[in-house]
């Protein structure tokens, strides 16, 4: 990965993390009898890479769904960019600058890679039906501008070759990459990644790590991600939040978390796919 290869001949500046970007305060949510999250609190700081880990069914995905408004908490608040909110629609959170990818790829299968990522720009585009119908003036201009922007993302993710391919035909690894591209297209301040490396081979994982690093570096995007591969997590995270059965059991730097007894127990307690 980038950092490693250049380590010996550069002085990489110490990563300075900004203030709190998003604050989760005593969040609880339940579906029927199932209590998915119980009084969870933590915060995400500007320009950091935060990992949320935990055994299956610990409520990780539910947490992401809360963060971008797919679900609403039963109690507790989420403060984003200083403004508190109880409930909001996903598209509102999108316009506030939260983007995300899904555990099992949620691309628009009927469209090409290019169109998928273009769709990610929809918030940046006008909806004037008349100019679009004539493909004239502003509409055409914005199509061109946005295309230019999207092409930079395509270049960034190194997917030039599959630009025109319907995403349905792409191998899993590439689909994940395209989905990341779609999320990036919104120029989010906070990027939520739900198991970005699930089901990838080592090489694909390395690529994905590189991209996450680079986008965090180049665009200063804050990243909160769920990941099972502990190697990866410990490698790329500035901080780690550990959930278990809906409760937060640890929160801190990779080393601190690795040391935490609670975490060790939790992971010994479960015997499956972790790392």
């Amino acid at each position, binding site marked *: 990965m980038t950092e490693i290869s250049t380590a010996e001949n550069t002085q990489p500046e110490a990563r300075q993390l900004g203030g709190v970007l998003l604050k989760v305060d005593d969040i609880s949510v339940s579906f029927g009898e199932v209590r998915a999250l119980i009084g969870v609190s933590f915060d995400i700081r500007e320009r950091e890479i935060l990992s949320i880990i935990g055994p299956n069914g610990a409520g990780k*995905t539910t947490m992401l*769904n809360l963060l971008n408004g*797919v679900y609403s908490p039963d109690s507790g608040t989420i403060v984003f960019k200083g403004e508190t909110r109880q409930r909001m629609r996903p598209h509102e959170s999108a316009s506030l600058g939260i983007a995300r990818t*899904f555990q099992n790829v*949620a691309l628009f299968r009927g469209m090409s890679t290019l169109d998928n990522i273009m769709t990610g720009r929809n918030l940046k585009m006008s909806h004037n039906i008349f100019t679009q119908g004539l493909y004239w003036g502003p509409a055409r201009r914005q199509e061109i501008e946005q295309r230019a922007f999207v092409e930079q993302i395509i270049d960034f993710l190194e997917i030039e070759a599959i630009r025109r391919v319907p995403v349905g035909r792409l191998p899993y690894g590439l689909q994940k990459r395209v989905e990341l591209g779609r999320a990036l297209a919104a120029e989010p301040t906070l990027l939520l990644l739900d198991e970005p490396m699930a089901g990838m081979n080592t090489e694909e994982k390395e690529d994905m790590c590189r991209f996450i690093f680079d986008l965090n570096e180049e665009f200063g995007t804050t990243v909160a991600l769920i990941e099972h591969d502990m190697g990866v997590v410990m490698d790329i995270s500035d901080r780690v939040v550990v959930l278990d059965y809906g409760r937060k059991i640890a929160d801190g730097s990779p080393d601190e978390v690795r040391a935490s007894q609670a975490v060790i127990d939790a992971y010994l307690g479960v015997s499956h796919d972790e790392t």
Partner: protein
Amino acid sequence: MKVLAAIFIDPFVEMVQFPVFFAEVITGGIIVGLMYALVALGFVLIFKASGVFNFAQGVMVLFAALTLAGLMDNGVPIWLAFILTIGAMILLAFAIERMVLRPLINQPEIILFMATIGLTFFLQGFGEMIWGGNIRKLDIGIPQRPFEVGGMLLNQFDLVAASTAAILVLVLALLFTKTPIGRALRAVADDHQAALSVGISLKYIWVIVWSVAGIVALIAGIMWGSRSGVQFSLSLVALKALPVLILGGLTSMPGAIVGGLIIGVGEKLAEVYWGPLLGGGIEAWFAYVVAVIFLLFRPQGLFGERIIERV
């Protein structure tokens, strides 16, 4: 002012002034409602078990009635005609499974839906090609004699129809809950993979369901047919069953019944008491509008299962 009165006051005044007539209207509504329910049941059965929204149900009603009537007109004794028709419906079920459902397995449900629309056209053409397009009388000897209860006129036929519907529902309910087939059906409805894994053959299930739906259609056909003759318009009854269906919830048999009653009664009341204001004929759409407005508040219908989005 006048208008408002006509809408909000006069009808109710009328109801109170002529309770017997009101009662008649209500019963009339109930009867019709039950008939709707009969058709709707066919939909529910198929949807529950195969996830297919069978637009062709209405035409199956017509087809069944046509076959029965056709046979009887050609001098086949009623009991034989009845059995033969049932046979025909089962045959039809096989054919549909083989030629439509199986090739389209794992297709998006909307595609299957459109396929049943195609099926609608096909069956109508087919039925009328065999039995001809003209109106047929269907008389299976249900007494039509009117009689009076507490001052209001009732028709034996209606009672028979009502009870048949009720019985049918009961039987189906039992079939679904008590018999192993029924449980299998439910399993399939919940999750095809699971069903397959427990060794239930989808094919087998579908044939059964469509056969049962066919028989239900036959009953409905008999009822409607002996009431208003067997003709193309019969298949339009199905269209009327649709609002009943979404009102009750696509997957709920009780829903179909209750929905039927609501629509039946509501429609009659509206037609009788408010229709004149609007120039009559409002039952053409009343049911739909009621259903739609209702859906806005309860998208999954009265008894339908809640649709939860997984992300």
